[in-house]
């Protein structure tokens, strides 16, 4: 996973924050849908959602019939319309903006654990039928599935309530916020000589129709604000950044939040002038509350995605029901954290979402399931089937991953460490699912000597082994929080937004990159 500004495929490069009424940049109806505004998270009448894609129920039925003509255990159509905007301020001027529109449908047929997949950006009946025939190629025999009546499935919850959809926010409204943030950062310290602010917002409409006639719809907003700084002292240059991200609207960017972001970016950058590398080798690592949830994401989260276990390639493949950590360790993956990047109202297969307990008081409890793995394990799907876009078939993925509060305090934890480090901010991490080795890269942290924080550290990689690290969790504090910055998780070439969190946690031993001079 990483925190870098992601640039996806050509088609999905960033994009139109127009907010000019009635134009296609906004989540507004096409001619077919009239002028209905799609409200994030809420469900409009099915005809309005279909209107977005200029399709109707008979068209969907016709395509589904073609898709299942050679038999299918499961089949679905995933329509998606995404609109993304970004604006950049650099060297004192708002110098560029970009926008993108990405629209298409992905068609999937599942037979046993075999998948046929095709997509098209061309939503004409002819193009969709051709794609359906391609996807159906996976099925060799089996009776054609009988046509069904398509009905919209309703739900009662909404985890991303915006007072105003992004489509209605004018670009000119965003510019003063961007300038304000840049000014706050610039005036914070005379040695700051470059300030880059990058604003991104967007929303996607999805419509999922399965072969049983269930239709699920969702409108998912997303926004992110980055503050990147370069500072100079003599002939030493340092740079660093901070960002705020979530499924929020324009009014989320209050003065207080902008001040917080500027302060974070400034302190993360200025501390680098005094930061050193810690000694190299094994030592206790204190994970600061918040972004350190990257430990869970890499050390256990990926290994608990059920596809790896179904294929017998995860180190956790035979650990359900086993004691893997002390009693005070409970780890969850939760789609219901409102406003988080990992929040979902419905997963990308149309399954209801939930808070899934991965480790319950130290005992391995459940994998993260999509429909295929749920069927394999004969359990209920956990609403973890996600995909990057209509170009990809879904698989089990994390949402918001965090550890529940434990019995200790941050002060107790730090005081208990004779010689070790605190990990505070991170840029990226990775894991080998089968061997269990995982890493994360610390951008900012602190050295602990004799129970006291003594000096800042920077730029070191941590490497450990998942099950071993879980066993070595010796203290967990009562200060759990989710990271305010945005994280993007990559798996098999697909990127999805996720969140992560942790209370202050002590892992008694991990291998710390460093330098012994």
């Amino acid at each position, binding site marked *: 996973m990483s925190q870098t500004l992601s640039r996806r495929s050509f088609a999905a*490069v960033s994009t139109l924050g127009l907010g*000019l009424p009635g134009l296609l940049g906004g989540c507004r109806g096409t001619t077919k849908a009239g002028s209905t505004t799609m409200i994030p998270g809420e469900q409009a009448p099915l005809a309005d959602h279909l209107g977005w894609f200029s399709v109707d129920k008979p068209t969907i039925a016709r395509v589904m019939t073609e898709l299942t003509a050679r038999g299918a255990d499961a089949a679905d159509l995933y329509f998606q319309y995404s609109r993304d905007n970004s604006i950049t301020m650099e060297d004192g001027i708002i110098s560029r903006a970009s926008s993108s529109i*990405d629209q298409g449908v992905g068609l999937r047929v599942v037979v046993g654990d075999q998948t046929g997949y095709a997509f098209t*950006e061309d939503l004409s009946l002819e193009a969709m039928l051709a794609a359906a025939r391609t996807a159906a190629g996976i099925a060799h025999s089996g009776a054609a599935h009988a046509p069904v009546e398509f009905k919209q499935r309703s739900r009662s919850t909404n985890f991303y309530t915006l007072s105003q959809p992004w489509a209605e926010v004018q670009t000119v409204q965003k510019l003063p916020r961007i300038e304000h943030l840049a000014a706050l950062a610039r005036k914070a310290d005379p040695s700051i000589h*470059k300030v880059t602010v990058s604003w991104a917002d967007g929303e996607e409409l999805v419509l999922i129709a399965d072969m049983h006639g269930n239709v699920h719809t969702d409108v998912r907003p997303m926004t992110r604000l980055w503050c990147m700084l370069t500072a100079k002292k003599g002939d030493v240059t340092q740079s660093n950044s901070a960002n705020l991200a979530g499924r929020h609207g324009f009014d989320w960017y209050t003065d207080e939040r902008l001040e917080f972001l500027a302060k974070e970016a400034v302190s993360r950058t200025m501390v680098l002038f005094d930061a050193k590398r810690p000694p190299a*080798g094994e030592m206790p690592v204190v994970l600061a509350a918040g972004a350190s949830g990257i430990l869970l994401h890499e050390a256990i989260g990926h290994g608990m995605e059920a596809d790896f276990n179904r294929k017998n390639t995860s180190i956790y493949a035979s650990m359900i029901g086993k004691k893997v950590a002390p009693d005070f360790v409970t780890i969850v993956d939760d789609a219901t954290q409102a406003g988080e990047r990992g929040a979902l109202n419905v997963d990308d297969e149309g399954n209801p979402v939930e808070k899934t307990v991965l480790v319950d008081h130290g005992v391995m409890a459940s994998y993260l399931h999509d429909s295929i793995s749920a069927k394999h394990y004969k359990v209920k799907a956990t609403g973890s089937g996600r995909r990057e876009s209509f170009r990809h078939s879904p698989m089990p993925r994390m949402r918001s991953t965090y550890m529940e509060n434990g019995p200790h305090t941050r002060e107790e934890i730090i005081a208990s460490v004779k010689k070790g480090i605190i990990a505070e901010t991170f840029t990226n991490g990775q894991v080998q699912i089968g061997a269990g080795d995982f890493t994360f890269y610390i951008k900012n942290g602190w050295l602990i000597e004799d129970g006291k924080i003594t000096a800042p550290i*920077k*730029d070191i*990689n941590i490497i450990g082994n998942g099950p071993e690290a879980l066993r070595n969790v010796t203290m967990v504090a009562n200060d759990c929080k989710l990271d305010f910055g945005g994280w993007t998780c990559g798996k098999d070439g697909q990127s999805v937004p996720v969140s992560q969190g942790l209370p202050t946690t002590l892992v008694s031993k991990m291998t710390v990159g460093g330098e012994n001079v």
Partner: protein
Amino acid sequence: MSDLIQSARTAIDLAKKAGAQDAWAAVSRDRSVSLVYRDGKVEKVEESTSRGLGISLYVDGRYSSHSTTDLRPDRLAGFIKEAVALTRVLQPDPFRVIPDPALFKGRPTADLERVDPSVAKLTREQREAWCAEMDAKAHSDSRVISAESNLFSGESQGAAASSNGFDGTWDGSYVGYSCTATVREGEDKRPEGSAHAVGRFLAGLPEPAAVAALALKRTIDRLGSTKGPTVRTTMVVDPEAAVSLISRALSPLSAASIQQGRSYLAGKQGQKVFGDKLTITDDPLVPRGLSSRHFDGEGISAKRMPLIEAGVVRNYYVDTYYGKKLGMAPTTGSASNRVLALGNKSLAALIADVQDGIYVTSWLGGNSDATTGDFSLGLRGHQIKGGKIGAPIGEMNVTGNLAALFAKLALLGDDPYPYSSLRAPTLVFEDVQFSGT
């Protein structure tokens, strides 16, 4: 192809009609096919044709860029009109101009052999047969509990046009396969190893079974892996792992990084930063090269460019915009193929010379700071003992500074990695800090 260039020109016309003084448009179409095979049967087949348009707008001294996959004529017209309106509310940028048409001149005409017509003709049966061969090879060792084989291929076509006279088209094909095998070790560990091969042409790729055999060897080699010691010693980096390490070292060569003060190579042009043995050329004209091209994304005609000569930084990647901010002439804004001057020894001979150290076969995570060059990377590999590759090691980090590391580049191999546009050989570095037990 003519329909693509026509679409690009139409987009330019729409932009000018909407009030843009200048515009640059690119249109592309890609077909991709992937077949995944696992443990005796097909697991997933994906096949699609994709298209899209990107456009850059220059409006009253302001700039923006946009992309869309909705190419219906009425939608496209609305999209571009709206994009021009958006550009007008931004602030004027004196450094933003459309690329100078003088840079379009002298476009090379050599056949870069980017397209293998046989790739488009691959049948489903052929793909499945090759995957089955890989699968059988991977399962030839009874310790293997699962193996995944993948055959992927694609063809693309594109065209670009600008309001100041640029016109260009390109096409390309690629085909490759990969194999990953997993074995069981002890109660829970399932170490894996993988190998892949990719090229523009089918001819020249190894047999699928040879790729699977390498994946299997790499997997078996992991058995018994332990954490090595915390030590300063010699590091030998496998060509495949050398690709990302060199890429990391070179990424701060971009004019954007330099102008923004986020490059440890800023102000180093003409200076010796790296070891004598490091010579790297950006070469866009390699036949069948994965990043070969006649022109870059700004239409700048392709030519060979020395990046590093005997450790001296010669050129940056300078695009029109950041070049103007820095007062430097544009070279090219993006890397093509990067070719290293080679040594004359094989990996085995280098290992024999080194006697004792650590042989890195792959990285796990880690990162570097482009501003300072500080890096720290996770790794797996083997001990080097008595001039031979020894026991497998993992769960270790290597930490240092990229400039200091490459200053201590002692030797290069004669074995450039063929499946990347960055053709790195085996690298030998002296006095490197490892963290382990």
